[in-house]
């Protein structure tokens, strides 16, 4: 199994470490590929869009000519895990902003929804079936509106901060900044399921 991690900017190595830590829990060997150019998108079974700065990542996926291919893969059902900036890349609408990036997830996000760095925080909550998960928010967005077909996984103070829509998991928080592997494990299981049923 090959998981491509968008590695143009941000906390991509943290995701790679989480995936590597899970390697011995699965029979099939899991290989991580750093996506820096279009050619890196070949033969990947899963996509991770990490935290970082969405303006930078969004610009680079276009400048480095991988926008169409990356978007096609997500549209065509390749399981995708997106955290923080990654969620902004996926969102179909961004509040107070005409720009959108990959625009494959039918939600509206508010960038820097908790303010500047002094508003960053940690709390605990449920992510779908996963209970008591550490939720790390760093200059994080939240979702202001989700279409009815979007499955809501996590809310904090009544704000939506985690969703799943078909093959796409979008989280406003950073599972890659914790020691808790359960969300990444769930993601790998989704890839397995997709491969088995394909």
């Amino acid at each position: 199994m090959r998981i491509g991690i968008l590695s143009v900017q941000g906390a991509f190595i943290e995701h790679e470490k989480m995936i590597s830590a899970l390697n011995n829990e699965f029979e099939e060997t899991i290989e991580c590929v750093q996506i820096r150019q279009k050619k890196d998108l070949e033969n990947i079974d899963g996509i991770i869009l990490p935290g970082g700065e969405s303006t930078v990542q969004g610009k680079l996926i276009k400048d480095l000519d991988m926008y169409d291919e990356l978007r096609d893969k997500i549209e065509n059902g390749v399981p995708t895990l997106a955290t923080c900036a990654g969620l902004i890349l996926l969102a179909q609408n961004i509040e107070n902003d005409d720009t959108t990036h990959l625009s494959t997830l039918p939600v509206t996000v508010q960038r820097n929804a908790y303010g500047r760095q002094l508003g960053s925080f940690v709390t605990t909550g449920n992510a779908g079936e996963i209970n008591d998960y550490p939720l790390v928010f760093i200059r994080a967005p939240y979702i202001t509106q989700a279409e009815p077909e979007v499955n809501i996984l996590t809310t904090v103070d009544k704000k939506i901060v985690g969703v799943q829509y078909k093959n796409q998991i979008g989280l406003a928080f950073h599972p890659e900044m914790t020691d808790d592997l359960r969300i990444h494990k769930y993601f790998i299981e989704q890839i397995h399921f997709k491969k088995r049923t394909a």
Partner: protein
Amino acid sequence: MSQSQYELNKGLAQMLKGGVIMDVTTPEQAEIAEKAGACAVMALERIPADIRAAGGISRMSDPKMIKGIQEAVSIPVMAKCRIGHFVEAQILEAIEIDYIDESEVLSPADDIYHIDKTQFKVPFVCGARDLGEALRRINEGAAMIRTKGEPGTGDVVQAVRHMRKMNSEIRKITSMSKDELFEEAKQLQVPYDLIKFVHENGKLPVVNFAAGGVATPADAALMMQLGAEGVFVGSGIFKSGDPEKRAAAIVQAVTNYTDAKLIAQLSEDLGEAMVGINPGEIKIIMEERGK
């Protein structure tokens, strides 16, 4: 500062990795930097090359000017305070800056003590020339480190020296036997726990960027290949002929720092680079400020 706040502050630096932080002096420059792909901007009244040219005492920037830049962009905004000037730092925290750079680029306010950064909620980045300096700053509460380099010169030689030195010292500690670590902690004047972390992990406990004298996409890629996790570009962009194009080229060079073919393309037609000054030609050596 609570432990979880420190983790969040280190975490913000992790989000900046693989990115370029650009010095800007106006909201217009900040917008250009953001559009070109900067992952954060450093708001300051004068870029280091101009501070150098003007001479005299340089201080924290006007909060109004910093606020103007905060309003202009959505990416994190950093600002500098003088070494040891904890009131300037309190002011920057009060206006909710995202990161404070306790910086040798400004005139030091204290020739012995750095700011006790553990007393702040807002994160700090500090410059370092070697591992000892880096760990001393981390012990004081810095959540991110950058090489000092020699700011405002367009000369990358000191940044290279500092990055190489830090990494070679890290390699040395990694290969030490456990009982040698106590003496190494004494030599570097840092707590044993930090030395132990370096010994076990082969890296600093916080993110480490390159800074000082980076002027071209090749300079930026050089620093990345030498082990930097991202790059600060100060005078190099807005002192050059075509800031927008140069900024965007440096951003892409940092992402694909091992792809020489791409960096070759990026280096074409960038117009004039900033005029460089050699270390022998400058009067103020900023890297020696704060130890």
